[in-house]
């Protein structure tokens, strides 16, 4: 071993000595690669300026503390084009290619929606810190602020527009649970963010349940039994987590009562006709007024494990309906549960009594107002005429009584 290592060192030294003469035999004196100290000779001098007068000095102290500085990297390891440049070098340097070292990350990034954005936009330049450092731009708690330098509503540069971050997950949960709380990258990915339309994106409609289920595994398991999950699994369109739970607008449990009422709107995006008949009911009307102590969709149909009515396990199946009503109306039976909570006044087959009752009421109202509308319309001008005539008669009577004697009862016009 010592013999071998001595031999290697010797060979290495020989090669090094021979290299310059081999590489550039024609050149008189080949320039050696500048060392970091060479760079700092100018770049830490507060007096040194560029041709246009701007100072050359930059705070390279942050580099020494950075993950690359701590790792002993030299300036030319990243600024590779300077390794063979004459000093002073050109003002415009070649773009640093991080993938030289970080090839796996580079590959992911090149396939992502951010491929036109450089690494420095999120990670910084000379001051890059490891994600484990709480001051790093990519430290768990700092990820939302880093993403928000671009992602605002409406989109625009930092400082403009409204925050889009999920105020619940990236607010309350993050403050309480730290590292185990989700931030942007937990759901969207980091280097490999894909557009939601891409089937491989965790934001793709078919993938959303798996993405949320990474943390909410119990809910995901329940949801998997639902008709919604089965429809998505069979390639059809149905509600996944984000269709009912407003992502980025999530409410905590304290917002529950209000959200329970508001969620009827989410159901109605697909079940429009059912929402309309629900709105006609007492439950629907009261919940429209924002009062939450009344049955909304989920109280009868369930939430994550919604099953079709024909399924015996469904909350609204013939077997379970009475028990479902009894949750709010204890002591009721089959008669009570025979109520049709989606009765449609236009559907003669389904609700014949309601259908004819509606026609009768419309006729009653229409007939009454048509008759008395006409009655009033004819009476109004006649009444006005009468009022004037009576006033005139009254006036004449007064003048007559002032002048001569009484003439007795006057007739009406």
């Amino acid at each position: 071993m010592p013999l071998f290592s001595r031999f290697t060192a010797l060979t290495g030294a020989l090669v090094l000595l021979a290299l310059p003469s081999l590489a550039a035999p024609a050149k008189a004196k080949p320039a050696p690669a500048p060392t970091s100290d060479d760079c700092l000779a100018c770049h830490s001098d507060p007096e040194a300026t560029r041709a246009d007068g701007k100072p050359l000095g930059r705070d390279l102290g942050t580099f020494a503390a950075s993950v690359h500085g701590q790792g002993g990297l030299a300036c030319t390891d990243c600024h590779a084009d300077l390794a063979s440049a004459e000093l002073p070098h050109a003002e415009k340097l070649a773009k640093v290619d991080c993938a030289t070292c970080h090839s796996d990350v580079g590959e992911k990034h090149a396939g992502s929606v951010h491929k036109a954005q450089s690494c420095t936009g999120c990670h910084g330049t000379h001051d890059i810190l490891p994600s484990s450092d709480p001051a790093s731009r990519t430290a768990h708690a700092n990820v939302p602020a880093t993403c928000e330098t671009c992602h605002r509503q409406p989109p625009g540069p930092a400082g403009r527009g409204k925050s889009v971050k999920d105020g619940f997950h990236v607010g309350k949960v993050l403050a309480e649970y730290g590292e185990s709380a989700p931030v942007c990258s937990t759901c969207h990915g980091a280097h490999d963010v894909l557009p939601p339309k891409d089937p491989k994106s965790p934001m793709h409609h078919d993938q959303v349940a798996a993405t949320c289920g990474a943390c909410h595994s119990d809910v995901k398991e329940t949801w998997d039994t639902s008709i919604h999950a089965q429809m998505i699994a069979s390639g059809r369109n149905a509600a996944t987590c984000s269709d009912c739970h407003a992502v980025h607008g999530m409410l905590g449990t304290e917002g529950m009562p209000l959200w329970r009422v508001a969620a009827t709107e989410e159901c109605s995006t697909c079940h429009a006709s059912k929402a309309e008949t629900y709105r006609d009911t007492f439950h629907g009307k009261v919940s429209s007024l924002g009062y939450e102590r009344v049955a909304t969709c989920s109280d009868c149909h369930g939430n994550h494990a919604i099953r079709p009515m024909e399924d015996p396990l469904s909350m609204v199946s013939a077997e379970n309906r009475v028990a479902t009503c009894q949750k709010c109306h204890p002591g009721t039976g089959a008669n009570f549960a025979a109520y049709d909570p989606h009765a449609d006044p236009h559907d003669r087959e389904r609700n014949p009594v309601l259908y004819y009752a509606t026609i009768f009421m419309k006729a009653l109202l229409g007939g009454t107002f048509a008759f008395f509308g006409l009655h009033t319309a004819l009476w109004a001008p006649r009444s006005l005429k009468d009022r004037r005539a009576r006033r005139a008669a009254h006036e004449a009577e007064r003048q007559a009584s002032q002048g001569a004697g009484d003439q007795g009862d006057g007739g009406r016009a």
Partner: protein
Amino acid sequence: MKGEPMGTASHEETWVERFAAIDRITHAILFTTFLGLSLTGLPLLFADAPWARTMALLMGGYGVTGTLHRVFGFAMLFCFAFHVGRVVFRLYRKRGPTMLWGPDSLVPQPRDLFQMYDHFMYFLGRGPRPQFDRYTYWEKFDYWAVFWGMGIIGTSGLVLAFPEFVARFLPGDVFTIALLVHGEEALLAMVFIFTIHFFNGNLRPEKFPMDTVMFTGRIPLHELQDERPAEYERLVREGRLEHAFVPPPQRRLDLFGRFVGAIAISLGLVMVALTLIALLA
């Protein structure tokens, strides 16, 4: 009346009683509870209207309006039960024949149909004003419309107020029908009262802006002669006219009537406007 101030002139006038105190009190309870029911029921009837949530919130939110609606509803039903009881009592005691038929009766009679026809002819300038008696055909319609409304809206309201109890005897479909009938009948009642009844009794040019007879209970003799000549002649013929004479109405009662009437008419017209917004939106 008739827009003239209650000055010395009206004190010289002779006044006749038209409504007894008990009828005026019944009417006062009726219209107070009716306005209360309308105000608390309207947001629920048009729950999708742009103003519904705000209106309910102004009254303390649905929890409060729902309770108030039930309280007003029961009060009105008690008033109705009292009235029916009184009618039955009087029928049984002495007034049977005149209450059920004849000029002092509220029961619709063939004469009313003829007078309605004559009234239309009069509107068109093709005949004299009919010789109305104590109750005109439109006043009878008002009375029976309220009577029918009480029965229908009251019954359906009770069904909706006690669903668990009602479902012991009736199938669940009854709630769908009860809600439809309750809402539509209430809409009919509100719009009818706030437009047609207000016009007939108060807003029509001869009465504008209002007639306080339902508060004071009395009308000047000349108004009786003008508007109800048949009743006047009947009272003279039967020698009862002098018995109907009363002192002029108290000024305070008349002012109170104008104050309450102005509030009721304003609230009613606002609710008609809200209804139109909801129906057109």
